[in-house]
């Protein structure tokens, strides 16, 4: 049992931290968010140069052989900077699926583009009716000669406006919510029949509604075995949970520090408001929520590579914790900052908005409580 970081992990953290500090202060971030594209290709290229995009991949593929703990360290630091560039969908979600389940040919074809920063990926798994159930899939994949033809609509696909490649879940067989019969397909966004409606999301990111109309893909587009897509997808989403938990503790840490600092300096009735016990205890509660969230973030990232049952329970439990704590810390930080907390100008509200989206991302508290209770 060991809770310490290796020297390499600490170096990695320091590197990401100083990169974010030097290149991604709040003003720069807001310029990027408000730009036409909504992300910075330049920053993305620098991520590639720093090796961040290579972190979880095997050395023989040109990666750095990192695991969930390395991803956790990176995501926490990206969270502190409220970084919008699509590390999660490209590297953690899609890269993770390809790395764990792609054929040699698929890895050969796609990982280099991720590592080099040329490609951006989005995971198109949710649908307008599916809410948080990844098995609820109406998008169809009909066998056609050697390949498949895809039809359907994918909802709120994070980073899809920036992506040139998608992984799409589609039903090869079975009924709408069957756990068998799904496939995960690699789809070029430029393929005939793919159209998107792009929009910003409340947290400063971008997403799309993705429509697939008779999109023809080859047999080599299918990742893993036909019909087994749900297992791969659920695993990827749990890895995603490990990553957003880390991102969220980065947010919470910044919010707590900012709130304590503000309450020490802001005066009312002639004294710093931080001298009021009623506010002190609220900040202590924020601090405890943060510490408990850190614990659950470490826990889930240590258990992601365990067996399926362990992994699911760990991910569900961690997501409940982060959902609740993130909402609590975000709301309290705004409240304790008073009117300032309501302004677009201050970063506090932006952390709060990202934490609010994270609560829903990959399933909210109620969803994961149910999942935890059933596990």
């Amino acid at each position: 049992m060991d809770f310490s970081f290796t020297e390499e992990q600490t170096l990695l953290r320091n590197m990401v931290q100083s990169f974010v500090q030097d290149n991604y202060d709040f003003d720069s971030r807001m310029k990027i968010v408000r730009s036409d594209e909504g992300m910075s290709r330049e920053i993305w290229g620098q991520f590639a140069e720093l090796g961040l995009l290579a972190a979880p991949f095997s050395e023989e593929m040109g990666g750095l052989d990192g695991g969930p703990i390395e991803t956790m360290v990176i995501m926490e630091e990206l969270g502190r900077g409220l970084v919008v560039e699509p590390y999660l969908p490209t590297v953690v979600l899609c890269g993770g699926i390809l790395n764990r389940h792609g054929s040699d040919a698929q890895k050969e074809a796609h990982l280099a583009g991720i590592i080099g920063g040329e490609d951006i990926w989005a995971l198109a798994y949710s649908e307008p009716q599916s809410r948080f159930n990844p098995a609820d899939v109406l998008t169809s994949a009909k066998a056609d000669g050697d390949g498949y033809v895809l039809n359907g609509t994918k909802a709120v696909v994070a980073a899809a406006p920036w992506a040139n490649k998608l992984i799409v879940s589609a039903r090869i067989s079975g009924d709408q919510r069957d756990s068998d019969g799904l496939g995960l397909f690699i789809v070029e966004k430029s393929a005939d029949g793919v159209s998107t409606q792009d929009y910003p999301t409340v947290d400063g990111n971008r997403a799309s509604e993705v429509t697939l109309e008779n999109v023809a893909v080859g047999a080599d587009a299918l990742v893993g075995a036909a019909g087994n897509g749900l297992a791969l997808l659920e695993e990827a989403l749990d890895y995603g949970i490990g990553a957003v938990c880390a991102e969220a503790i980065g947010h919470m840490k910044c919010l707590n520090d900012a709130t304590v600092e503000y309450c020490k300096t802001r005066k009312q009735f002639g004294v710093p408001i931080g001298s009021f016990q009623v506010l002190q205890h609220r900040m202590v509660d924020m601090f405890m929520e943060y510490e408990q969230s850190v614990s659950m973030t470490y826990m889930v990232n240590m258990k992601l590579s365990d067996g399926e049952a362990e992994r699911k329970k760990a991910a569900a439990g961690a997501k409940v914790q982060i959902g609740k704590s993130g909402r609590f810390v975000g709301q309290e930080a705004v409240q304790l900052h008073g009117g300032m907390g309501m302004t677009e100008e201050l970063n506090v509200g932006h952390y709060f908005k990202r934490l609010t989206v994270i609560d829903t991302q990959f399933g909210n508290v109620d969803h994961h409580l149910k999942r935890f209770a059933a596990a």
Partner: protein
Amino acid sequence: MDIEFAPQDEDFRAEVRSFIEENYPKHLVGADRGDLSKEDFLAWHKILAKKGWVAPSWPEEFGGTGWTVTQKYIWNEESASFGTIPPLPFGIGMLGPVIYTFGNQEQQDWVLPGILSGETWWCQGYSEPGAGSDLAGLKTKAELDGDEYVVNGHKIWTTLAQHADWMFCLVRTSSEGKPQEGISFLLIDMNTPGIEVKPIITIDGGHEVNEVFLTDVRVPAKNLVGEQDKGWTIAKFLLGNERSGIAGVARSKKAIDRLRDIARAELEDGKPLLDCGAFSRKIAELEIDLTALEYTELRTLASESKGQGPGPESSILKIKGTEIQQRITELTMEAVGNYASPWVPQLDRGDNYLAIGPEHAEGVSQTYFNNRKTSIYGGSNEIQRNIIAKMVLGL
């Protein structure tokens, strides 16, 4: 970073588990704390003392086990999952560390063996009617008269003082300066003339706490620990130690297992309560909070094993640990439904007492009411929040 135990730790787990299974007194398996006699309280303590395992938290030179942090964690887990009655905290957890840290050689030779063997039962004379969370407001007075202190005052909430041979006591030896100055740490023989112990019956119907009245109690001056008027440092040191073991994670895990068993046996509309979505989600929430606390404690232990002592962060363990304990007892009471209401305190039961309702409902509401104390004792949870605000957040 990984959560696996090393093979030698798993061997250790097997060793302590079989020791507990083979040596734990049969008549105390599953016993309720409220029913215990003085001998019962000490039975397991004395077995552990013979084995040399009664004070794992002490340094080896004073009678500790020399176990690693991980081994101590495993020991606590195994003890809890078996449901042992842990050695009383007053000697092992509270006074012992004070004596080997602040006591002189004579005091160490005299006090520590009695704590380890279980021969001397200690109680804690801290709180007073006017000094609870604001402990420094204590008024019990000790005046030096020759080579004796003469003690006059009134202690309250003194846990299990009815069994105690000795009391470690905070007394006021000076009223100069700040309230924290002028406090001294004194060891008092409970058989000294002038001491009266009066029971306090709590809302669960039990007799656990007492009032202790001290009238012209004469205490040899050599029973002073540390310097006169400098007892506040010792008092705080003791409270810090008191907090660190208080999370009670392993025991809460066991209590949740029991809660789940009860919820499986109780029916709602003919189906197990455990399968009722609303109730099972309450249990799930509790378990998630407990998992988070478990990892917070492991993180604290890990930094402790690197030589960083339990910091003010241990206040988190107290607050969260007791909140969870209280919620478990609350849900357990909810789970048994109507049979939470029958109320026949231990003290009122005659020889012909017939149990009422299912066995698992026995005592659950008493336990619920009893556990309301946990957020009050050991420095109330509000005081713990003050500590974090000041020491961690710098407010």
